[in-house]
């Protein structure tokens, strides 16, 4: 078994209103960052785990996202794996 670090990015679905992102965009505009056209706010999870290979770690992490870490109704996710 090898140690891996898995980074999971969970984002609200593009079709859904993201009021947090809108609030951050408005605040950036107020600070003079007028070039910002859109902001979306999601979650970033960092998992340390043991697996037999990088592919195995990815498969396990995706299973975790399907079951718990992301809600498929409201969120999309992607997974990045590197040796821990």
């Amino acid at each position, binding site marked *: 078994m090898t140690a891996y670090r898995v980074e999971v990015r969970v984002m*609200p679905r593009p*079709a*859904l*209103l993201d*009021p*947090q992102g809108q*609030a951050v965009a408005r605040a950036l505009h107020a600070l003079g960052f007028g070039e910002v056209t859109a902001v979306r706010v999601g979650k970033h999870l960092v998992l340390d785990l043991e697996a037999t290979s990088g592919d195995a770690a990815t498969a396990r992490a995706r299973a975790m996202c399907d079951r*718990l*870490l992301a*809600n498929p*109704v*409201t969120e999309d996710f992607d997974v990045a794996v590197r040796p821990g």
Partner: protein
Amino acid sequence: MRRVAVVVFPGSNCDADTLAAASGAGADAYYVWHRDTDLRHADVVILPGGFSYGDYLRSGAIARFSPVMGAVAAHARAGGAVLGICNGFQILCEAGLLPGGLMRNAALRFLSRPVWLRVEAADTPFTCLYERGEVLELPIAHGDGRYVADPRTAAELETAGRVVWRYVRDNPNGSTNAIAGICNAGRNVVGIMPHPERRTAPVLGGPDGARVFQSMEARNATQPAVDVRAVGDRHLRV
């Protein structure tokens, strides 16, 4: 007298109000701890409001894996009545017992105030004593109350008459189609974001929520889609 199990999760905070509302309507109501796997022959299961597991990750996301939820899902699949109020509604959505999900209020603020909602369906076990079209005043207390569903699901809810309550006058949290509560296809699993258990008597600000609990007891309560007899711990389709 119907047996009503009020499930208590760590972080539930409307369990006592819900138990009192069910008892006040004449039910034999009792608590079931989330680690229990036995609903003790419940006729009705209520998941109360609160902040189960601190709302960590997403509201209801961790509670749905509590040991009791296997029994709740089996009860629902057998046609048994289930009501989720506020956090209970969020848990039912996370568990896949109701479609859609509940996201952060559109205005980002936690809202604790009265709202008005129209009864859109009186053919559920929790609304059979209401008239369709009646407007109720009930309080909300939530940060994640914006009901969302993909367009196909939302259209299905509308055409099948599965929107049970809808916000009127204003849509406090930005819910799709101003949806305040829905039911499943079998009409035995119902979720509502406002708090009927907090409005069961004039002294509590109004009586508009009381009939949710009285409906469970009503003789003419909607029968489940299939005839179900509970034998021992098992539900049998007859």
